[in-house]
Every structure is written in C-alpha cells, then in structure tokens.
C-alpha cells in the first residue's frame, strides 16, 4: 500500500536520509524506529508529501507522490508528533476543518467526523474545545483528525508521547481496529513495548539509513548468543537431581527474555544522540 524506494534527502552538506526503502502493506503495522536525529522525521515528511525527496519515489496504493499532484496525498493520513489542533475551535470543528481540506463536505463530512470521534471515544466531547482536554484526549483527537477522510495509509509520528497508560491503551485498541479494517499503518516511536505490542514488522533507521527491516523474531535472532541466558525450571528440584542435570546435556526450553530494546541498542549503539 505504501512503498518508499531509495529515498534520499540532504540539507546542505548534511545527508539526512540516504537510500531509504520501506513498505507497508494493507492490514499491517510497521514500526519505524531510530535514535534522535536518525532521519525518521525527514522520512515521515517525505512519505506524507511535506518534503520533496532529492531522489527516490513514494507510491501510495500505486499512485506516485509528487510535488503538485495531490491524488496520493489524499490517500494518506498524518498524525503528527506535535498536536496539530486548533485550541479555539471545538473538537468536532477541528475534525470538520481537516475533512474539508481533503475535499469532503456536506453530510458525508459530518458523518465521517462523527465516526472518527466515536472511534477515539470523544463523542460526548464533540463541542468542547481542545484547550479543555487532557493530554490523552488531545492525542486521540489528533488521530481522529487524520482519520476523517478515511485514508488508506496512516502515518503516526510518536502519537502517544506524554499520555497516561489508559489513553495509550485506548489508542492501541484504535490502531488494532484500523489494522483489522485493512489500513496500512506506519508507526514511529521510542517506546519498545509499543512496538512489541503493535508492530508486525520493524524498520530501524540510523544515520539516515535503514539498518534493519524485519519481524520482531527476526530482529531478536540478530543478537549474538548470550552465554548467561537464564532458564526457568518449574517445581521443586532435588539438589542431587540438579547436579546431575548440570553434568549432562540439558534438554529444556529457555525463556526468551531478550527485549527489543536490547536489539535496538545492539543495532544503533549506546552513545547518546542529542542532535535533533
């Protein structure tokens, strides 16, 4: 559904993104991970048509994203990291505004807006202004604004920053619903547990390049063997028996507690990335 091929972008001498390729299929959530300054935001901007790549192409449902051509843009919904809401307008009016920008109008727009509000659980706050919302409610409204035109692809740039577990869980449920409806979702985050719960595939980007593109299992397999791997044995163990097991080749199933965070740090290093 969403395909990026050999995207590159430079700002002066800084090569922000180099030869990045990725794809997201319908009914799939792909995580886009990377340290600060790795090139995630530039990649997202190119995928949404905000920034024009120096090289490479983006296609959405077979339609090429080009400057001045809006057909592909209309197929993408962006949930930006910054809350792109207008505090002075009621929640429903925010959604109606963004729907209007995608050419919707009349009853179709109003019904889509109601559905979007319903999905994110804000129906009863339709007439309230975002200024009165909690952080979690604002994040959900931010998602609703991106969904009102029923895009085939949803790009979510750190959509759960600074919210409570309940709101985060609600958003996860929303995203899983959208996946079940066949939407293609690209999800950028710094939270590994989110990726573990949501993502079918993970793309890790660093220094403007893709360093990994795999499933969770595939990524875990990239770690070198860990000699200190722990085992859990159920039930009471006789010390003599334990000694005998240790002297033999142990046939047991190890608990795989290798976290994605370990994989991430293995691939991108542990040095701080303070550059934005």
């Amino acid at each position: 559904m969403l395909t990026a091929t050999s995207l590159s972008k430079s700002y002066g001498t800084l090569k922000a993104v180099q030869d990045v390729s990725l794809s997201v299929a319908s009914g799939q959530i792909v995580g886009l991970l990377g340290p600060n300054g790795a090139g995630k935001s530039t990649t997202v901007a190119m995928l949404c048509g905000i920034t024009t790549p120096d090289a490479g192409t983006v296609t959405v449902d077979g339609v090429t994203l080009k400057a001045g051509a809006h057909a592909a843009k209309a197929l993408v919904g962006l949930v930006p990291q910054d809350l792109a809401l207008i505090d002075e307008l009621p929640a429903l009016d925010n959604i109606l505004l963004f729907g209007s920008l995608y050419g919707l109008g009349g009853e179709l727009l109003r019904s889509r807006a109601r559905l979007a509000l319903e999905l994110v659980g804000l129906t009863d706050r339709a007439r309230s202004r975002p200024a009165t919302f909690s952080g979690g409610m604002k994040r959900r409204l931010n998602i609703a604004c991106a969904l009102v035109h029923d895009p085939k692809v949803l790009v979510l740039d750190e959509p759960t920053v600074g919210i409570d577990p309940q709101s985060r869980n609600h958003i996860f449920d929303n995203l899983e619903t959208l996946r079940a409806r066949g939407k293609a979702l690209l999800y950028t985050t710094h939270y590994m547990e989110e990726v573990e719960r949501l993502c079918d595939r993970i793309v890790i980007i660093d220094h403007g390049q893709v360093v990994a593109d795999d499933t969770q299992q595939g990524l875990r397999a990239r770690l070198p063997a860990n000699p200190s791997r722990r085992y859990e044995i159920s039930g009471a163990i006789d010390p003599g028996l334990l000694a005998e097991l240790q002297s033999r080749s142990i046939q047991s199933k190890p608990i795989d507690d290798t976290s994605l965070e370990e994989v991430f740090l293995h691939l991108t290093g542990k040095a701080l990335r303070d550059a934005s």
Partner: protein
Amino acid sequence: MSAFTALVRKDVRLFASNRRALLMSLVAPILISAFLGSVLGGTPSKPQAVPFAVVDLDRSPVSQKIVKALSEDSSFAVQSLPQGPAIDLVRKGTIRAAAIIPKGFGEATTKALFRPTLTRPVIELHYDPSQAMTLEMIKGLLTQHVMQVVTAAAFDPSAAAPALKQARDSVANSATLDPAFRTDLLNMFKDIEVVNNQSLTQGSGKAGIAQGLTLPYTTRDIQVTNGETDYNAFAHAFAGMTVQFILLMGVELGVGLLLMRRMGLWQRLRAAPLSRGTLLGSRIVAGTIIGLLLMSGIFAAAIVVFGVRVQGSWLGFVAVAIAFAALTSTLGLLIAAIGRTPEATRGMAIILTLLLVMLGGAWVPTFVFPEWLQSATRFVPSRWAIDGFDAMTWRAQPLQSVVWPVVELLGLSVVLGALAISLFRWEE
C-alpha cells in the same frame, strides 16, 4: 465547503475568537481616535474661550476699560485677580496666562502714543510654557484691545488736552527735530485739537476718533471642506488609527503563521492535498477579510458615535479600505516569509509599522515635517491610505481622487505578495 473556503473561514474564526487581538484591533483604535479627535478639535462646535487672568495694578480709567474690553471678548474667559493668585493659577495650568497691567499704565501709554522716544510701560505676560501656542493669540487680542482703549483715551477731548499740550510743547522745544518735520507734527497736534474742540462743542465726546482706533476690517472664517458640514477632527483621527491598527493586525497574522510553524499545524496543513497557492492565497484572503471587518467596526463607531461622515464617494471609501486590507494582508505574509522566530519578528515588525504610521501622518499631520520628509512620505503606503480615507470623509473629494492611491495600494500588494511567495520557506 472547499478547502480554500475552509482555510479562510478558519483564520477569520480564529481571529474573532482571540479576544486579545480583537481588543487590540477594534476597541483600542476607537478609544485612541476618540482621544486624538477630541484633542484636535472634536466635532464642530464653538471655539473654547482661553482661560486668562488680568491683574490691574493701575486701577486707572484706561486700565479698567482694558479689563472690561477683555472680559467682553468671547475669545477669553477672563478672571480679574491679584498678582499672586493669578500666577499660581498659571503655574497649576488652570489658566493659560496672566497679564499684569502696571501702575501708571494708563497715563504712560497715552503719552507714549505720540512720543516714541519715551519709555513705554511694560505689560508682563506670565504664561504656561506647555501652552506656548496660545501666547501669540493672547498677545494679538491684547494688542487690539489696548490700542483701542488707549487711542480712545488719547483722543478723548476732555482727558487728552494736557497730554496733547505736553507733546506739542515737547515738539516745539526740540532742538534736534528737522524743522519741516516739526512743522508737520505741530500741524497734526493743531488738527487734533480742532477735532477735539468740535467734539466738545457738539457734546458727543464719543463720536468719531474718540472711540479709539479700531481694526479697519473684520474676518469671516470659512472651513474648506465640502461646504455642507463643518470639519470633524475625529475623521482624520479615525483614519490614522485605523491604518495603524490594521497594520498591527497584519503583523499578528504574519506572526500567527510563524506560530503555526512552531506548533506543527503548518506541517499538518502541508500534508493535506492542497496547493501552495491555496495555502498562501487563503491566508491573503483571510487577512483581507479580517482587515475589512475591523475597518467596518472602527468606522461604524466613528460614524455612529463621533459623527464622522463619508462626504465623498462611498465607492471610493470602500475601494481604499479593500486595497489597504489587501496590502496589510500581503505585508503580514511577507513578515511570515522573512521572519524566523515569532518573538523577534513581532518586535521588528511593530517598529516598522509604527514608523510607517508616523510617516503616514497618523500621529501628527505631515505638514509639520520638514519639506524633504514631506516629499519622502509621498512614497509611504500608510499615507496613501490615510489620505484616501481623508479624501473620502471630511475632504469630500470625488471618486477620481482616490483612483491613484487605490492603484498604488493594490500594486504594492501584488509586489509584496509576490515577494512573500518567492521568499516563503516551504522546507522546514
């Protein structure tokens, strides 16, 4: 609703919902215009009398007549006071000036009238330095009344005889006067005596020259507006303040776009399937509409509350308003295109705006500027707008008189808009 309309509507709604911006842009110009207009003359009315005090230390018939004449002059609100309290009132700013008529004034002036070589008595004028402009007016009116009273006294047949005799003797005994000139002067004194004697014989005493020298003319003051209504100082004040606050509104629009960039809203709009023309064009149209709405509100108050009238062409008035609103909107866009941070941009833009407004004649009329600056301000767009509004209100000019200012304003709008679009940073 099209995307363009939705964006325009959004900007207008946002501006309307921002109470601070509304207060700044609508109420503030009305209040300041009301103040400036009233200071500069307000609505047509009788001129106010100048508060003024006279201290008569002489108490002679001449000085008493001067005080009476001043009191009867509607240009003055005269108080007759002792010297100390009179000067105190000037110091406090309660009155504009106090004239001290010295002892012996009446006698001395009658003598000095015919003998320029004599030391003339001095009227001390204590005046408020913050009201120095009224000093010249007071001097002029004082001169008129003193001359009238003193000459009347000089030519009073019964009172003037001793002074005339003294003057005639002085001339006759002068060793330095040219003989021919002396003869002329003596003849003049003789003629005066003849006239005085005739007045006494006829028993009038108040006829002819005995009334004193009066101004040989009067004036009729005619305001050059449209000849139908008097000048309303609020008209110019509202024109100036409207231009100032609409320009400040334009600055806010520009800064608003920079804030949208900072908050990520601009990026979100750019992700929508909208052309650059739609994004920037909607800002220009929204800014123009907001400017027009504000101008409508401000001038509605001017018309309803302060009696300002569009005595020229309504079409011309609307054309100036639209052209200036468009100019302000494109200026705001240019500010957004050039500016980096909202804070720094706002500061710089406000300074530029105030400079434009000052040079445009909104604060003080441009005629007080030096000649070279007056010539330079002909190229200042705020002056085009203020002159245009003046022409369509109190100057009562026809539509043709604002064609060129409107063309200039619209032309500059196109230039600023093109510049803003070419300089606009699309890549973050």
